[in-house]
């Protein structure tokens, strides 16, 4: 009906964005916006093309085409509303989750960062060493019949050569003002400016090696920046067919192993590796590796205890205060309520840092004021650190529950309470049988989400204790680490040795745990609703 009111000229049910009816402004705006969407889509496709990320390219093509189909056909009306949400879901949830899942099945991390090709490059780079005591020679890049070479000034002679031809003295060459050969008979000098400005030429020059003599053992001239050269030797040889690197000086053959390393028969490895798929290894390791299993088990227990106790205590305290301050006999309730909300209004990480300072056993105000200056080591003792964290989280989150419960209490109709009173229900009976069930209908889903938030409450743990005190032993984890902070440490993002594969596998396990718990508890709360 509203459509008819706003534009009576159009037939009922036709959208003003579909065609040139009426003033046509709606259609014009839609056309412009869709043009914008398509332009952005094409830009993204081109960017993905040049970055060679085919999955992103495919997804962008599909999404852009889908957008056009959805908004230009008359059918699929519900999709017009659902499409943006679905594309967000794809981009921000499924893509991220899929990528994490992919990493979880690889050994991506320290020592396994790139491709095998890059590992070979790195091994060759790391192996090629300047001959000890070798001089630096002024150098010029030269060319002969399409082949690049070097000319160097050695004493008062100029010597030149190419990859095929070892260095030989060239007579009649001149030396320029900057000390490098200026003209070399038999060769064309490539001006340095040209070398520096041409990326392809640069790469050729960087990889060019001119042998010093017929004996390969003597090494080759190499330049790093195109104006000086020195003698380098290299002992590793890459055999692309056999996929082995051979150390010619020791005779060791490094073979590509299935776990992404070059390993010799004597067990020695080259530094750089590449990442490979490892199947379920990361998941298996998380539950079987004794160095991980024990600490992770303890961490998991504490994570559950922390999340459950945090929600239960804050909910309880918040509800208690809400009941008390909901009594109409209390004056200035508005002021009290505002004051109660204050801890909630501070940024959580600031509060956590403040509490960390206040709980300091020697300089902290808590010990000074409340414990007669006793040196209670709140954050250094495993048990006390847990108590301290639960206490601070209670302080941080009870105002939230106070707010929520106050709202829920006020929504309970007065007449049901009156009816209960008339039926002879006492104060406690009214709370248990009328107030609490109705309160839980609206607050239980919040409690579940709060559980999920606390399950991953990284900020509080890291600002308060950084997971410490440590378990000791060979693990870096500590008594107050929860799963998410343990994963952060295992991932090595903060500078330790990184294992993204294991960290991703653990995050997936955490996701599954939270998913299952949320599903079960949401089903339980539905029962609550049915009860009413």
């Amino acid at each position, binding site marked *: 009906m509203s459509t008819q009111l706003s534009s009576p000229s159009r037939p009922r049910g036709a959208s003003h964005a579909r065609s040139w009816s009426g003033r046509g402004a709606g259609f014009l*705006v*839609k056309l412009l916006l*869709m043009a*914008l*969407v398509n332009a*952005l*889509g094409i830009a993204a496709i081109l960017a*993905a093309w*040049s*970055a060679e*990320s085919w999955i*992103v390219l495919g997804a*962008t093509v599909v*999404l*852009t085409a889908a957008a056009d189909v959805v908004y230009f056909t008359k059918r699929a009306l519900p999709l017009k*509303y659902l*499409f943006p949400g679905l*594309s*967000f879901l794809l*981009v*921000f949830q499924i893509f991220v989750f899929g990528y994490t899942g992919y990493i979880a099945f690889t050994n991506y991390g*320290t*020592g396994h*960062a*790139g*491709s095998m090709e*890059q590992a070979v490059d*790195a091994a060759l780079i*790391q192996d090629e060493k300047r001959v000890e005591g070798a001089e*630096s020679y002024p150098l010029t890049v030269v060319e002969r019949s399409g082949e690049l070479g070097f000319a160097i000034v050695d004493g008062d002679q100029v010597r030149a050569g190419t990859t095929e031809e070892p260095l030989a003295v060239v007579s009649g060459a001149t030396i320029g003002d900057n000390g490098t050969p200026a003209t070399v008979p038999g060769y064309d000098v490539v001006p340095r400016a040209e070398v*520096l*400005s041409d*990326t392809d030429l*640069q*790469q050729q020059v960087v990889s060019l090696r001119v042998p010093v003599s017929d004996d390969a053992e003597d090494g080759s001239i190499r*330049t*790093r*920046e*195109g*104006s000086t050269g*020195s003698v380098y030797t290299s002992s590793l040889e890459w055999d692309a067919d056999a996929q082995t690197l051979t150390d010619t000086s020791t005779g060791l053959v490094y073979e590509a192993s299935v776990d992404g390393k070059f390993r010799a028969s004597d067990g020695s490895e080259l*530094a*750089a590796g590449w990442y490979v798929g490892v199947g379920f290894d990361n998941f298996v390791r998380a539950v079987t590796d004794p*160095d991980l299993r024990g600490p992770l088990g303890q961490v998991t227990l504490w994570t559950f205890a922390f999340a459950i106790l945090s929600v239960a205590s804050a909910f309880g305290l918040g509800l208690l205060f809400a009941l008390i301050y909901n009594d109409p006999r209390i004056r200035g309730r508005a002021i009290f309520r505002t004051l109660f909300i204050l801890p909630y209004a501070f940024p959580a990480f600031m509060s956590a840092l403040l509490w960390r300072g206040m709980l*300091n056993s*020697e*300089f902290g105000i808590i010990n000074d004021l409340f414990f007669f200056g006793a040196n209670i*080591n709140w*954050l*250094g003792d495993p048990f006390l650190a847990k108590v301290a964290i639960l206490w601070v989280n209670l302080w941080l989150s009870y105002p939230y529950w106070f707010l929520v419960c106050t709202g829920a209490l006020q929504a309970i109709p007065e007449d049901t309470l009156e009816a209960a009173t008339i039926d002879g229900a006492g104060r406690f009976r009214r709370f248990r049988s009328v107030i609490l069930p109705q309160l839980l209908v609206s607050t239980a889903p919040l409690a579940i989400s709060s559980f999920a938030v606390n399950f991953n409450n990284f900020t509080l743990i890291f600002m308060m204790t*950084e997971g410490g005190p*440590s378990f*000791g*032993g*060979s693990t*870096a984890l500590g008594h107050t680490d929860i799963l998410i902070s343990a994963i952060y440490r295992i991932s*090595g993002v903060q500078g*330790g*040795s*990184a294992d993204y594969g294991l960290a991703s596998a653990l995050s997936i396990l955490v996701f599954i745990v939270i998913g299952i718990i949320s599903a079960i508890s949401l089903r339980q709360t539905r029962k609550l609703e049915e009860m009413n």
Partner: protein
Amino acid sequence: MNKRMIITATAAVGVLALAGCSADAEPASTESPAAEQAGGSGAEIVVWTDAEREEALSAAAEAFEADTGATVTLVQKNFEDLRNDFITQVPTGEGPDITVGAHDWLGALVTAGVVDTIDLGDKTDDFEDVAVEAMTYDGQLYALPYSVETVALVQNADLVGEEIPATWDELVERGLEVSDRPIAVNTEGETGDGYTMYGFQTSFGAPLFTQDETGSYSNEVAMGGENGEAFAQWLSDNSPSGTGYLSTTIDYDINNELFNSGEAPFTIQGPWALSTYTDVDNIVVGPIPSAGGETASPLVGVQGFYLSAQSKNALLAQEFLVNYLSTEDAQRTLYEADPRIPALTSLADEVASDPIVAGFLAASQNGVPMPSIPEMGDVWDLWNGAEVQILNGADPASTWNTMVENLEATIN
């Protein structure tokens, strides 16, 4: 109509976000394909830098651009992010040609295969030995160093005089004359801070790893045995259950507050903390006193410029590093932008006319480079944790030995 507009706009954002994914959240200007296509004078090198060094670098870049016709694109990032971003983005081809970095990342960068070697030629001798040593891994030089930093003994000269104590006992004796807390040593609270404590540890002859004659570290843990136990015992003797001079109640802020207020006349700190000592009129800086009889060698950190192993303009990038950033002018600009001890010897001597800089320089000359081998990543948590446990009353020798055994097990 409004609703429709919002919907379409959100769809547009969705597509944009996908485009963002493909570019890996890097500024579009750093995309290498642009440089790839450009023949002629359009060659470009991309340099990742932190905020402090950006301006100093742009001065050197200008001269370089004028001489070679190439473009230098500076991309500013958080220093803390550089290491991981470099490791993850170089293999994808999105990384820079050059990045600023700390020397202790070297092991991780080498095992990830993302750094190229560089050759300073005869210029190597112009730099402080400890700086070149730090940037050397397995006999190869990987970065151009520009600054050196370390912790040193910082003392309040108004309270304890100008003379630097040579031993821990002397320090305690002189400190006790003015305060019952002679020294403040940061332990990062309950986290532990083996870095600050390392000078004392080495004075017992218990270094982290063995070093060969070129200064390269092996992965053989060297802090066990009698010397390590002696250090652990010393920690325990000075813990709250002993003299109480060391405790896990001190974090960075409390440490600086204690020194600034004069409550502790000595502290172990780096140059970065000096700006907080506004109430101390006379600060004297010198080498860390020996607690165990041998020279106290603090860990020295070195900052420098790394070259990407996947650089498409390696020649140009080497030229920029070796012939532009290594010059005294460029190094001086870097020093002026962020006054840390220069790695270039001539410049270091020049700025050492300031007694405080001279003090830190002297401390760094006693020091050893922080190990950059990848195994170091496994050390921190266990090492710090053991020191905290001992300070909190655990049995020193057994705690220390367990830590060393666990460390050896983790490394091998």
